[in-house]
């Protein structure tokens, strides 16, 4: 699902870039609460794992292939905020080291594969864990369902982004059918791997599963002769109960920004869009979009030769704006973070 350069037009790229930057910024703040000095390497491992898993392309059907996304796994193992960061780092490194997914398409890729999967999976996971009986098998089952749903959800978001800013002449309906169809299948693979991994980890090292924290037994003191005394339990880290409201708000804002931005551009300068769009990543799955009755078909122009220059400018401006927004957010957050973190640095 890695979108290549030139696949999504500039305005949408910029909009998703802003969404991605905001999501990463929020996650950075949230992750401070999720991460202690043991969780940082865990986050790194999750990232490495997702990295490896995303490189496994497996054939799905009709000559197409897909890869796992890993958002659900990340969210469940390290928490939603850190999960977003993990997948974003994976996407960034894939872009920088392997050119997998265009550098200028980072915004689309992060919004789609990091934010969507993580948020969808985590919200669903928490709901299920709340509803299901408090057992370890419930956590495994919940992670299965969360992963299963998160992948087609990302496919839907991809289709939405494509409908808003796709640069190729493949109709949205076809894209939707193909993407969601394929990703339901991939979702099953993802669900299997996610639940098996979570299940295996929870059996051996439940302390590593963010979604299952908070089950500590009281300590005992044993004297040399073998008698034991109970110790009042210390306040166990109540990591489990965390509001996902912020995550949801970010998702909402993201959707609004996207919608607003895109419709503005789509209605005011329909011709410029097409050409401009050369700035997103590549994806195998998108390869099979077929085109048909797209609801947005009118917004997209076939080949508008006279709009080229304006299109190009828009592209450049768009990409620049993505950068500016992203950098701005990062710098602000970083400053604030640096200040906030200072008093506790020695504990990190």
């Amino acid at each position, binding site marked *: 699902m890695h979108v290549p350069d030139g696949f999504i037009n500039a305005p949408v790229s910029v909009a998703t870039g802003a969404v991605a930057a905001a999501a990463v910024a929020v996650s950075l703040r949230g992750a401070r609460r999720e991460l202690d000095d043991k969780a940082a390497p865990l986050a*790194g*491992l999750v990232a490495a794992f997702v990295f490896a898993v995303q490189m496994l392309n497996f054939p799905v059907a009709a000559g197409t292939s897909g890869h796992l996304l890993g958002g659900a796994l990340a969210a469940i193992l390290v928490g939603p905020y850190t999960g977003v960061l993990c997948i974003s*780092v994976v996407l960034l490194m894939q872009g920088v080291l392997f050119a997998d997914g265009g550098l200028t398409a980072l915004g689309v890729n992060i919004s789609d594969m990091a934010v969507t999967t993580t948020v969808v999976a985590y919200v669903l996971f928490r709901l299920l864990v709340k509803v299901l009986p408090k057992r370890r098998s419930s956590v495994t089952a919940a992670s299965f369902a969360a992963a299963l749903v998160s992948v087609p959800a990302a496919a839907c978001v991809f289709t939405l982004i494509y409908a808003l800013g796709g640069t190729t002449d493949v109709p949205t309906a076809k894209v939707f059918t193909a993407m969601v169809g394929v990703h339901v299948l991939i979702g099953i693979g993802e669900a299997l791997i996610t639940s098996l991994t979570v299940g295996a980890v929870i059996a051996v090292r439940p302390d590593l599963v963010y979604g299952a924290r908070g089950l500590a037994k009281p300590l005992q003191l044993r004297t040399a002769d073998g008698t034991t005394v109970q110790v009042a339990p210390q306040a166990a880290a109540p990591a489990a109960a965390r509001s996902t409201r912020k995550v949801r708000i970010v998702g909402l804002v993201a959707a609004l920004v996207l919608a607003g931005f895109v419709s503005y551009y789509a209605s005011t300068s329909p011709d410029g869009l097409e050409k401009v769009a050369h700035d997103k990543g590549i994806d195998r799955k998108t390869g099979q979009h077929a085109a048909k009755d797209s609801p947005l078909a009118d917004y997209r122009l076939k080949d508008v030769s006279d709009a080229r220059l304006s299109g190009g400018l828009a592209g450049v401006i768009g990409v620049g704006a993505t950068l500016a927004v992203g950098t701005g957010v990062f710098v602000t957050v970083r400053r604030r973070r640096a200040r906030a973190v200072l008093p506790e640095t020695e504990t990190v």
Partner: protein
Amino acid sequence: MGAGHAHKLYRHARSPVHELPPHCKIAATFGFVLAVVATPREAVWAFGLHALLIAVVAAAARVPAGFLLRRLLIEVPFVAFAVLMPFVAQGERVHVLGLSLSESGLWGAWNVLAKGTLGVAASVLLASTTELRSLLLGLQRLRMPPLLVQIASFMIRYGDVVTDEMRRMRIARESRGFTARGVRHWGVLATSAGALFIRSYERGERVHLAMVSRGYAGTMPVIDEVTAERAQWTYAAALPLAALAVCLTGWMLT
């Protein structure tokens, strides 16, 4: 254990490109890709010039053409995708050798292929002239939030561990007569994933403990301070500026 050791993409050499500070190189790569992406797809010659720029940098970095080309193979999945596009895209059809192809699909394919390849080439050059550790230092110096740098550096460290453990587990599996062939064995592989995760984590955890025990607090201590001089920035900026010139010319001529 692979923290800062050379990674497989890295190619050791002494060259002006290797010696540039990492943050300059990252910025230059990014600028180059931006310029490439902004180049109009109709300006076919412009992509030739971009490729030439890459070739010049590769020569300066003493990266042999064969090495670069082999690394480009990573792009193959995208090529497959691009090849499909002319068949599925809509729009006017052109007929080549009896095949009915979509014209815009062809342009789309060319667009993705050309820009993708150049992007990959630029990234490969960056990766083959910069050690991972410097790459991370560079990102850090480019103001990437420290938490992201930290996750990235652990990710890279664990990358080695995961590969290594994967290899050991495969050897263990195969010495008991199991080879993965096709869908039937997905179950076994999927079960391995959980075990792989824990094994990798516990191995990496020990490294992390060792680091924490020696005062690691989230950032690698800077032992050799690298600062970029103005001359180095200028030098690094040559690539994106040249690409930008090509890009702008492309817009004016097409």
